[in-house]
């Protein structure tokens, strides 16, 4: 009895930091490979691990972190779910489609909240369509393409053959690749649309050599975000050339082959609690909630505005297991971070690649730098 009274007194004096994790379930997409099972809860387990990490720290700072997870079924009303969060919750981590990010951000109920886009790589959301109360955790497509370009330049693989899939996302990825090619002086010697509608598993051996014949190039760059055909390009090209882009050597925020800078500890903690490898979305949600933890501890506040001010200040430094302190770009709300260049079973490199310099932060060699931003 006495004991519980003591505990509740402690609890009452604690500062409570309330965070919502809003997730819309996705329809199972068509995929080329049956090897990797579709994971529905990508992201959520990352947010949960970060809450637990935050609370381990919070016990020393008299802060208590609470996560309210809201899962909306496919086709469910996201705006209603967002509005239902109420005024009490000022910090919201979003794992939704790119189109939904601003639909939610523009709701009247979102105006005094700080939102974390923990799923998109969309450059427009960080550019012309940016919102001042939205921070973006995952690297944009432009950052990923720049990361690949830096590594290709280091290898002197300058002549690119670009293969673009059929979805709108593939075209956005291809646009980022073209921007990076221009920035780093690469030559696009060919660009072809992959428009085969049949199952590539059956026909790749015959199609790919023919498709890639006729040009000489250093690397085949593939834009296939959904993974409908990209996996089947490697080893089947007419000339023996490596594949990079959305398959082959990929640019990603997180990868299971990453073990440096304490990453193996995060990989282990996640695997122990989730029973599977940490995916990029899990890492993004983890970082969003950890960023809130770091800012609220240092700013000693649970208010969205104070947390945002601290996050966008020079003092903010997030430890994200990638060797360099991470922070937010004040001009577009993007988290600046190293990007992993990973093959399926080995980590090939980390960008920014050594030698790519920048007057303020080498991390800003990736993606839209301050003078280039379209975010006003």
């Amino acid at each position, binding site marked *: 009895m006495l004991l519980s009274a003591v505990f509740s007194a402690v609890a009452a004096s604690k500062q409570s930091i309330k965070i919502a994790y809003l997730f819309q379930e996705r329809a199972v997409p068509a995929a080329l490979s049956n090897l990797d099972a579709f994971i529905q809860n990508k992201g959520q387990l990352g947010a949960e691990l970060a809450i637990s*990490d935050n609370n*381990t*720290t919070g*016990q*020393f*700072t008299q802060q208590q972190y609470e996560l309210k997870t809201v899962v909306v079924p496919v086709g469910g009303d996201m705006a209603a779910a967002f509005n239902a969060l109420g005024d009490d919750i000022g910090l919201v981590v979003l794992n939704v489609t790119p189109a939904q990010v601003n639909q939610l951000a523009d709701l009247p109920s979102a105006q005094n909240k700080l939102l974390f886009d923990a799923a998109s790589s969309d450059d427009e959301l960080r550019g012309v369509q940016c919102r001042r109360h939205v921070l973006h955790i995952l690297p944009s497509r432009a950052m990923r393409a720049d990361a690949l370009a830096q590594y290709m330049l280091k290898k002197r693989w300058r002549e690119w053959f670009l293969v673009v899939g059929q979805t709108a996302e593939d075209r956005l990825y291809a646009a980022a690749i073209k921007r990076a090619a221009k920035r780093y002086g690469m030559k696009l010697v060919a660009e072809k649309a992959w428009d085969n509608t049949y199952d590539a598993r059956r026909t790749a051996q015959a199609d790919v050599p023919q498709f890639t014949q006729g040009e000489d190039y250093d690397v085949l760059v593939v834009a296939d975000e959904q993974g409908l055909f990209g996996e089947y390009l490697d080893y089947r090209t007419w000339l023996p050339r490596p594949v990079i882009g959305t398959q082959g050597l990929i640019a990603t925020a997180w990868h299971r082959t990453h073990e440096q800078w*304490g990453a193996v*500890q995060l990989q*282990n*903690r996640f695997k*122990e609690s989730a029973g599977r490898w940490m995916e990029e979305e899990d890492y993004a949600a983890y970082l969003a909630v950890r960023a809130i933890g*770091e800012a609220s*501890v*240092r700013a000693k506040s649970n208010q969205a505005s104070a947390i945002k001010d601290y996050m966008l200040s020079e003092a903010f*430094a*997030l*430890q994200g297991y990638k*060797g*360099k*302190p991470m922070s937010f770009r004040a001009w577009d709300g993007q988290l600046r971070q190293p990007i992993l260049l990973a093959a399926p079973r080995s980590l090939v490199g980390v960008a920014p690649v*050594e030698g790519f310099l920048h007057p303020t932060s*080498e991390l800003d060699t990736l993606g839209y730098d301050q003078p280039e931003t379209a975010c006003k």
Partner: protein
Amino acid sequence: MRKIIISFCAAALFTASVPAETVFVTLEKDNAVAVVDPVAGALIKTVPVGQRPRGIALSQDGKTLFVATSDDDTIRMFDAETLRETGKLPSGEDPETFALSPDGKLMYVSNEDDSEVTVIDIAAQKALTKVKVGVEPEGIAVSPDNRWVISASETTNMLHWIDSKTHQIVDNTLVDPRPRAVSFTADSQQLWATSEMAGTVMVLDSAGKQIAQTIKLEVQGVSSDLIQPVGVAIDKDRRYAYVAMGPANRVAVINAQTYQVEKYLLVGQRVWNLAFSPDQKRLYTTNGVSNDISIIDLTEHKVTKSLAVGRYPWGVAVKP
């Protein structure tokens, strides 16, 4: 037994009449401890100790060698002369770093995956208690006056001040990201801590528990992300502090009165940990990637020798 004694005598004859110290180095990948005669500059032998040995320390009386065998989830005790195992301590899971109380009775172990510090009664070979600390505790140190046990949590970015009598956390200091190693000055007045991520060394005043000095380590021509300070050692008179800089492959020589970095000494690759010779005339470094140790002459601040010891040298302890 007789054979070993003879070979030791022979080694002593070959070197000088000055009694030489023995350096013990854990070899993470060889599951062994390397035994080195640093004055002769020779690897005497390599002794198997268990899976993935990392943290290593000698008891106050120099008779017992403690080795954290991480993958065996235990800390093993060895007779420091014969290197025969004499017992095991219940360290908890995956022990890496640990510290001994000045009276030699207690051991404090960081349990990185469980966010705990285990307190062990060495004589009883029993865990007395566990102290809940921040996420990923790594560096640990006991003040020479036996007032404080400090645990550094890498992800919580905090130094926890544990009262060594009550084993309760009394205070916490927020520090630069990924604090790694902690070490007290001989007078217990200052605590030095390294931040692996910010590339800094912080000097805290033990009375106020606040950061008094922050020293940024920078080496021309070495990219800032390679500057990852790890082990730190301060000499008895607080004239100099030495900081192992990990993949920057250097040891920083810091004037501990002015807090200026006077020199960066190039050692082997991925330098982890440091230990003084008993007379503090030499410093030994473990170089995890180049598989050697470096011997630094502290009167000249010069690296005098590198000595191959085995795969992934991690921790180092010196027996007079």
